């Protein structure tokens, strides 16, 4: 007669699929789970019957739970149904000891039926199918319906940066073009900083966003390239969001059938030019960029 328990020592990365691979020989069946349609945050529950021995998990390296394969999943959390918790589910992180004064981080009791929950975050439009043995929930993605229109007055709809209108009297303040000597030899330089520069009139709004779908979403934006002389902002009369080249910055939530208008503004920092005989020899006064938008669906 064998032991009445089984110990699992996790020494490497711990994935949710890995756990179910380990316990597969001991689980009689899975049930009470459904496919889920979800945006960025997904939640599913299931139950399983352990018709065998007690199963103990040890995580000596205290590595966090992961999802494998990663696909479009950004994070995963595991829960055990437990009425003593306010949410009805006890979080199991596979690091915190499952029972006080014990070393194991998770236990599946023998000859029992227990229910669990899994929460993942993913790209809102991504569909994640997760299959192992008798457990194969699918997290169906939902698509966003966003329309955004560049103003017809913009010069180049693919490049917003074409339309800014700095105050060039600043150059004239720095260079005395009325001086005949300067005009003849054409040697001069200038350097200035100007904040909150709008697009050239008469463009009232650069972007017009409309949520034509059936889900509220958060609009975010990403700048395509870094520059030491230009900071790019999206906003309106009440706020300005400084865009980043590394992460999408949230701009605003847009509810179903709602339209919101935004402008793009820039700060030019220490832009400069130097001319020799009217020929440009040094130039930092360039600010070309593009903006990419993203939509993150909000939970109902």
């Amino acid at each position, binding site marked *: 007669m064998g032991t009445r328990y089984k110990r699992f020592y996790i020494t490497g990365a711990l994935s949710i699929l890995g756990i179910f691979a380990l316990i597969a020989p001991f689980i009689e069946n899975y049930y009470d789970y459904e496919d889920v349609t979800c945006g960025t945050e997904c939640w599913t529950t299931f139950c399983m019957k352990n018709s065998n021995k007690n199963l103990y998990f040890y995580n000596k390296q205290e590595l966090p739970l992961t999802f494998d394969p990663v696909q479009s999943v950004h994070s995963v959390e595991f829960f055990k149904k437990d009425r003593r918790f306010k949410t009805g589910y006890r979080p199991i992180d596979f690091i915190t000891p499952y029972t006080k004064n014990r070393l194991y981080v998770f236990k599946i009791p023998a000859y029992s039926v227990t229910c669990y929950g899994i929460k993942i975050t993913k790209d809102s439009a991504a569909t994640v199918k997760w299959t192992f043995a008798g457990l194969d929930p699918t997290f169906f993605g939902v698509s966003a319906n966003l329309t955004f229109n560049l103003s017809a007055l913009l010069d180049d709809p693919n490049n917003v940066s*074409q339309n800014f209108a700095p105050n060039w009297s600043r150059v004239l303040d720095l260079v005395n073009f009325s001086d005949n000597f300067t005009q003849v030899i054409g040697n001069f330089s200038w350097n200035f900083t100007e904040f909150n520069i709008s697009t*050239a009139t008469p463009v009232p709004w650069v972007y017009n966003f409309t949520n034509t779908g059936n889900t509220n979403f958060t609009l975010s934006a990403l700048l395509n390239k870094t520059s030491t002389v230009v900071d790019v902002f999206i906003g309106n009369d009440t706020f300005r969001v400084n865009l980043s080249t590394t992460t999408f910055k949230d701009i605003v939530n847009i509810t179903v059938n709602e339209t919101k208008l935004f402008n793009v503004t820039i700060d030019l920092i220490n832009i400069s030019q130097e001319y020799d005989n*009217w020929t440009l020899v040094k130039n930092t006064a360039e600010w070309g960029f593009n903006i990419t938008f993203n939509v993150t669906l909000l939970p109902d």
Partner: protein
Amino acid sequence: MTATRENKEALDVPDDTRLIETNRVNEKVQMEEGSSIIRRQTYGDAFILSSSQNGVLATDTLGASTRVTTTESIVNVNSVFREQFRDITFQDITQQNTADWDTSTGRLKMSSSSNHATVYNTIANFSSIALNDGTVATITLLADETKFGNDSIRYFLTADSGDTTYEEVFNNIEITLANTGIDMLARIIMVGNGGRDTFIENFRVMY
């Protein structure tokens, strides 16, 4: 103009062709007289038969010469110089010209580039636009300006042909020059990010 025509070609039917009837349209074509340039050309050492000075064999050159052409005067109708930028007659090629003197569109553009995400500081230099056409003391400059954003166009004129006596003048404002003279030149400086979308047309100087 209206036109009608009926033509029956059956042999036993007389031809009933009607002449084209026209309504005359009055057309008015406006013409602008440009500057008159009077030039003097010297004989140089060109051989001229029977000439006491240029008829010396083995000294004067047959078939070639060292003749020199000088501009004696540039006279403008009603003392108004007009530049439509359709030719480069008055572009001073001995000076810097970084602005785009575009004869195909008839525009003096800040630049030929369409890029608005950078800055241009460009210049256009005119050669003499009025010479020995009376003393220039007061002038009024006119130009049809098209400017992108906050671009700037600046005008400078001199009446005594000197590089050190250019004075700034402003569009459609009469200016009394500090230095009067008989040889007027112009210079235009453009600053901004408009590129080809900042330009002037129909440039005029009244004096």
